[in-house]
């Protein structure tokens, strides 16, 4: 887009028009398009139909909206839906707050900054299943390191993953532990790109550290915030592997989310119901992410 604005000589212009047709061939789209269409688009479109059927993979009987009715009637399926929302909101909320604070901390002049950046970011690259298993052991109600440490200072820790009240939130905390590094590096990139002049002007006006954070960093790091919110919401709504490797949705169905319900129904052979879960999930993702990104991005332009 930017290069089009360059003033072209007449000869170059002719070359360019011929060039566009012959050297930027549309068939370059083709290999990628075929793979994407066959293995992503087609199944997505097909899911709209199969979610309305009782399905054995070889045979599909049309049953109208029964699957969806079941989805919104069975208490454990509704809980999966609610849990998905809680999980997504809690994880992305914490990632924004902690990511921003860490971003500010790790762009300030402190010792061991590079070490701290590395150590916060590294968990992002580690296997989710590995992290899940490790924390399952660390969070064991009696033998786990966390509760043993708490006991040493006289606090009786909860059954992080065994108590129905805490299971989902415990997994969400581990998700934040693993994912906050990404939020942090996004904030670091955002904060570093804020021109120093703003801070200098604020200093001259006598703004304290807190005021500078509140009136300069926070508003000008807004694009980073938008990115972190949207990325972690998408990730949180779709989350499966961490929950599955830590609780399998338990105890009971208290930490089930839509993605784990989809897997359980698939394993049980209810393919139509599983696919309906999938449709519910992408309606949910679209309903939350599309309007949110529109609103967040619009305000940014208006600023």
């Amino acid at each position, binding site marked *: 887009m*930017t290069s089009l604005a360059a003033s072209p000589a007449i000869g170059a212009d002719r070359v360019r028009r011929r060039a566009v047709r012959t050297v930027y061939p549309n068939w370059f*789209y083709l290999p*990628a398009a075929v793979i994407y269409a066959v293995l992503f688009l087609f199944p997505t479109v097909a899911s709209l139909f*199969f979610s309305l059927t009782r399905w054995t993979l070889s045979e599909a009987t049309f049953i109208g909206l029964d699957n969806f009715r079941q989805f919104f009637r069975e208490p454990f399926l509704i809980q999966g839906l609610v849990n998905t929302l809680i999980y997504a909101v809690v994880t992305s909320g914490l990632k924004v707050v902690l990511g921003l604070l860490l971003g500010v901390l790790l762009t300030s*002049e402190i010792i061991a900054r590079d070490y701290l950046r590395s150590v916060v970011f590294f968990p992002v*690259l580690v296997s989710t299943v590995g992290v899940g298993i490790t924390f399952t052991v660390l969070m064991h109600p009696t033998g786990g390191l966390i509760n043993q440490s708490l006991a040493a200072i006289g606090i009786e820790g909860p059954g992080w993953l065994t108590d129905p009240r805490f299971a989902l939130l415990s997994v969400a905390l581990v998700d934040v*532990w693993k994912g906050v590094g990404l939020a942090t590096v996004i904030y670091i990139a955002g904060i570093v790109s804020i021109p120093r002049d703003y801070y200098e002007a604020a200093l001259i006006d006598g703004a304290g550290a807190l005021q500078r954070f509140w009136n300069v960093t926070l508003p000008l790091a807004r694009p980073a915030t938008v990115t972190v919110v949207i990325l972690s919401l998408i990730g949180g709504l779709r989350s499966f592997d961490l929950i599955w490797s830590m609780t399998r949705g338990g105890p009971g169905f208290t930490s089930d989310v839509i993605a784990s319900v989809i897997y359980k129904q698939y394993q049980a052979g209810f393919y139509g119901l599983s696919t309906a879960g999938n449709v519910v*999930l992408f309606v949910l993702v679209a309903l939350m992410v599309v309007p949110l990104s529109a609103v967040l991005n619009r305000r940014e332009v208006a600023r």
Partner: protein
Amino acid sequence: MRNRGGTLIGAAAILGSIIIFIIPFAFILITALKDKQQASLRDFSWPTSFHFWSNLVEVVKARDYMLITALVNSTILTVASVTLLVVLGAMVGFVMQRRPSVWTGVANFLVLAGLIMPPAVVPTIWTLQGLGLFKTLHGMILIEVAYGLAFSVLLFRAFVSTIPREIDEAAIIDGAGPLDLFFRIILPLLKPVIITVIVVQSVAIFNDFTNPLYYLPGKQNVTVQLTLYNFQSMFDTSYNLLFMNILIITIPPLIVFLFFNRQIVVGMTAGAVKG
């Protein structure tokens, strides 16, 4: 004064980072070194005796050398998918950026959809079955390509816009065709973003658990993440072996991290901030 504040806060941050981030990794390491009995205590103590080698051998031998099969499969899967993601993603990103047309709009929309939408699982299995690709490594490779394309295209398109068109024009005047232009001139210029795509996608695909769980079931097809998942129930009482396995599959990302830290961060933030 500013410096002393920095030191103080830094020291507090280091302490916090040790408790929150270092200890879990140290726990993995020391548990992997313990014998079965000591590991079963699940405490954070120094190993009374070191069993690195015997634990390693036992994990590798488990279930008929399943871990070796898994490492081979994961390597093939990662290398093949990432190669396709680089070449196909760069082709799309190149034409998208250079030739605005109806297709650009369509492609933009599809990239966005690919970044946001969760895949429809069972219909995908059904499609793979129809193509004879279900439970095959080929099918799995194509799945990873389909799911990773959006992100690759996003990065490539952004980077292509920094390459001046004059370079294309010079090549055209010299009589280069589309394939020459792309493979001989553009692709080498894309090297920085190619490294970013390779690093980010390899980590993602190597660590992918959900997709192989659905599309690549079966004993012959295991990937490292599936193996770990299987061992979780099998090594229920042998934490030393379970954590040895975690240690083994943490090493590849660690190596990538040590050598390509900057590219990963650039890729993840650039792709993100643009979106």
